[in-house]
């Protein structure tokens, strides 16, 4: 018998256990439920049930915090009562109490007729359903009165003869109070909703901004990859030409135009970006020019009042030697592998072989020049001793044959300070304060052409009809008068100089030459004819630095701005404004690095249009010169130090 009972119990228990919950206790309560289940439980057990049941366990274990915010003020039940459709019933009811029973006026047909619409012939739309006791009937006196005495007695107002009764009115006030509370409740709920949604929108906006930034970053990466591709392609060409035994002395493209990444020691990756990791201190006056052959290669720096640029080994940070020969401050230079070209205030341009700087160190030969004394070991400049005067009075350009010592060649011809130069392969272009630019052949040392900027200013190239007349800073006469000197705007530390370089910068490629000059104009010349064919006007102060690539010309000037021009059309793409005069710049597809009269080196990101500044372990006085290759930047400042940065 007992087994049967147990069987019965288990049989009845099973359907309950699968539906009823987690408890497996067999007690009388569960037994009692069994008949109900068996008889009424014919319905299928749906997944809903199971879901509900299983979830209960999990939910019970969750924490129940104190309610706060809207949850505390407005309970769910209140909200329910305020927002269900029947909440509005009382209002409808009250409106009905104000319904006046008038003979059919046909208002709807009237209205539709007034709008020009055909009315329904059906006139008996259902009157609104309301409980009988709510309808207040006006006696038919009004209707009858009208029929009898239409003219004289004015029609009574609709509300005349209507009484509600005190109870009704009290009830109505109570209902209205309740409705007002409901509105209060609903308002609280809606405010809460609005706050939540605003919060969500803000989060989404933040996400969108972040994604847009990432998009810009991708663009930058793509530009970098493009550059890398070009660099690799060049390398491929070079190496295939080498294996084929072609001229090994065909120089790799000038470092100024090379695009791809350079070779860097693996340790360079470990350097924190944006920090100056090497400082070279040896000069005593502000740095006026610097250039280096390659990262961790050879660096040449020059400073004011010092006619001997110093040569450094960037691997060790040690000074290797000096370049003796110039008589005045070196204002501009360019270094390509082991060749260095410098232009100085004495009006001469010298070509140096940097490999020979080491040899000089132990030389104890006689000195011929009037400059440095024999106190130091190194000596011997390139032999422009007796045979040629330091500066020939005639304007004939002359050169000196190779002598021992690092100076390989001397190019004379300019009468005033050589303030800008650029060379590539065998061609050199220099610009000087005598307001001319000269093109030289470095093999022979001869000046091939002289381009007169003054002439170009007074005879501007034929401009297209209808375009505005060029607005020069200096008229031809003024420019010709005397030496050119413009006070610069002060640097960040308040110091300023007289800016006397009429030609601020030059660069050429093939036959196209671009120059930036003291009248604020950027001119594009054809070196075959020696004539400028285009003038880019926009700067209001002398142009101090410029660079161009296939698409853009970027020029910086003393008017505290950097302008980016379109090379083909001459239109301005962008103008970047700074706080002080711009003295040096270099750019690539992704960034512009500029020295703008502050202690920090300014970097402008061209894709994200963000400015940043290199300050860590930086200079203590305004930066004047800089040069970078790939992730290696060298900067020179008025504090007479040269710092090397990892970008």
């Amino acid at each position: 018998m007992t087994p049967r009972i147990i069987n019965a119990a288990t049989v009845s228990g099973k359907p309950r256990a699968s539906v009823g919950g987690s408890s497996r206790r067999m007690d009388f309560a569960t037994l009692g439920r069994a008949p109900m289940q068996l008889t009424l439980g014919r319905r299928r057990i749906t997944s809903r049930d199971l879901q509900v049941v299983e979830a209960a366990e999990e939910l019970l274990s969750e924490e129940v915090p104190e309610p706060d915010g809207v949850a505390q003020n407005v309970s769910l039940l209140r909200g329910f009562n305020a927002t269900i459709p029947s909440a509005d019933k009382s209002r409808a009811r009250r409106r009905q109490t104000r319904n006046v029973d008038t003979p059919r006026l046909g208002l709807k047909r009237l209205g539709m007729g007034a709008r020009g619409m055909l009315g329904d012939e059906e006139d008996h739309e259902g009157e609104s359903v309301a409980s009988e006791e709510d309808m207040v009937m006006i006696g038919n006196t009004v209707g009858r009165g009208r029929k009898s005495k239409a003219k004289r007695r004015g029609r009574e107002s609709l509300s005349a003869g209507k009484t509600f009764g005190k109870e009704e009115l009290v009830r109505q006030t109570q209902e209205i109070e309740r409705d007002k509370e409901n509105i209060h409740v609903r308002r609280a709920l809606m405010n809460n909703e609005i706050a939540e949604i605003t919060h969500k929108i803000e989060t989404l906006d933040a996400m969108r901004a972040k994604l847009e930034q990432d998009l810009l970053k991708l663009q930058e990466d793509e530009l970098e990859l493009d550059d890398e591709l070009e660099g690799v392609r060049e390398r491929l060409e070079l190496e295939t030409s080498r294996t084929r035994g072609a001229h090994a002395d065909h120089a790799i493209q000038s470092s100024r135009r090379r695009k791809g990444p350079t070779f860097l020691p693996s340790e360079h990756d470990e350097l924190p970006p944006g920090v100056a990791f090497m400082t070279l201190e040896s000069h005593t006056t502000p740095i006026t020019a610097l250039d280096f052959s390659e990262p961790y290669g050879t660096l040449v720096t020059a400073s004011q009042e010092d006619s001997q640029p110093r040569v450094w080994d960037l691997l060790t940070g040690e000074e290797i030697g000096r370049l003796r020969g110039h008589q005045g401050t070196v204002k501009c230079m360019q270094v390509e592998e082991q060749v260095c070209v410098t232009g100085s205030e004495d009006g001469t341009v010298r070509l140096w072989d940097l490999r020979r700087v080491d040899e000089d160190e132990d030389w104890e030969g006689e000195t011929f020049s009037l400059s440095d004394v024999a106190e130091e070991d190194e000596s011997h400049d390139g032999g422009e001793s007796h045979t040629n005067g330091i500066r020939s009075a005639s304007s004939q350009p002359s050169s000196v044959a190779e002598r021992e010592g690092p100076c390989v060649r001397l190019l004379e011809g300019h009468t005033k300070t050589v303030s800008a130069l650029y060379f590539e392969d065998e061609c050199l272009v220099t610009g000087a304060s005598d307001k001319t630019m000269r093109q030289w052949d470095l093999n022979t040392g001869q000046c091939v052409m002289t381009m007169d900027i003054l002439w170009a200013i007074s005879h501007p190239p034929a401009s297209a009809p209808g375009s505005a007349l060029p607005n020069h800073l200096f008229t031809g006469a003024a420019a010709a008068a005397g030496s050119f000197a413009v006070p610069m705007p002060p640097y960040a530390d308040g110091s300023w100089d007289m800016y006397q370089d009429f030609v601020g910068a030059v660069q050429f490629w093939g036959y196209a030459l671009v120059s930036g000059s003291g009248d604020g104009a950027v001119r594009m010349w054809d070196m075959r004819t020696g004539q400028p064919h285009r003038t880019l006007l926009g700067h209001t102060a002398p142009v101090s630095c410029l660079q161009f690539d296939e698409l853009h010309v970027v020029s910086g000037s003393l008017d505290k701005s950097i302008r980016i021009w379109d090379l083909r059309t001459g239109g301005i793409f962008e103008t970047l404004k700074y706080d002080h005069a711009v003295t040096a710049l270099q750019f690539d597809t992704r960034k512009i690095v500029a020295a703008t009269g502050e202690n920090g080196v300014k970097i402008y990101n061209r894709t994200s249009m963000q400015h940043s500044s290199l300050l860590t372990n930086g200079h203590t006085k305004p930066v004047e010169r800089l040069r970078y290759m790939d992730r290696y930047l060298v900067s020179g400042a008025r504090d007479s130090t040269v710092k090397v940065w990892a970008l």
Partner: protein
Amino acid sequence: MPTELPYAADAEVSLSYDELEVLRLQYQRELSQSHVTTQTKFNYAWGLVKSPIREHQVEGVRLLQEIYRAEPTRRRECLYYLALGYYKFGNYEEARRFNSLLMDKEPSNMQAQSLASLIDQRVTREGYIGMALAGGVAAIGTILLASLIRRAARK
């Protein structure tokens, strides 16, 4: 501040079909806009729980569970409604657990206390039924056994 809750009797009063339909439409509309406010969900869930149809009750409890999961601030009220829902379709075990959680938080809550006593009543009533059933089964079993023995003895 004690939570404002309805007495269990309120759960036995169901909404009219139209009203429930309106709530359902409101809920569906907000669902299609993929932004459902808690109040709408609760309105619909509560309307479902009040209904006498068991499927509705289960669905209502499911929605209440979702609210419970999603809104920590509303959990305390949901405890009560969930207990009520379980009570309506007969899961007294869960009902009791949720309700006791609520009473831990608010021992002086009248509605929770009344719900607790209701649950106890039901459970004991079923216990009586069970006992009666067991007794009846036992009685029938004894009679059968006795008749068998008698038959065997007679043989």
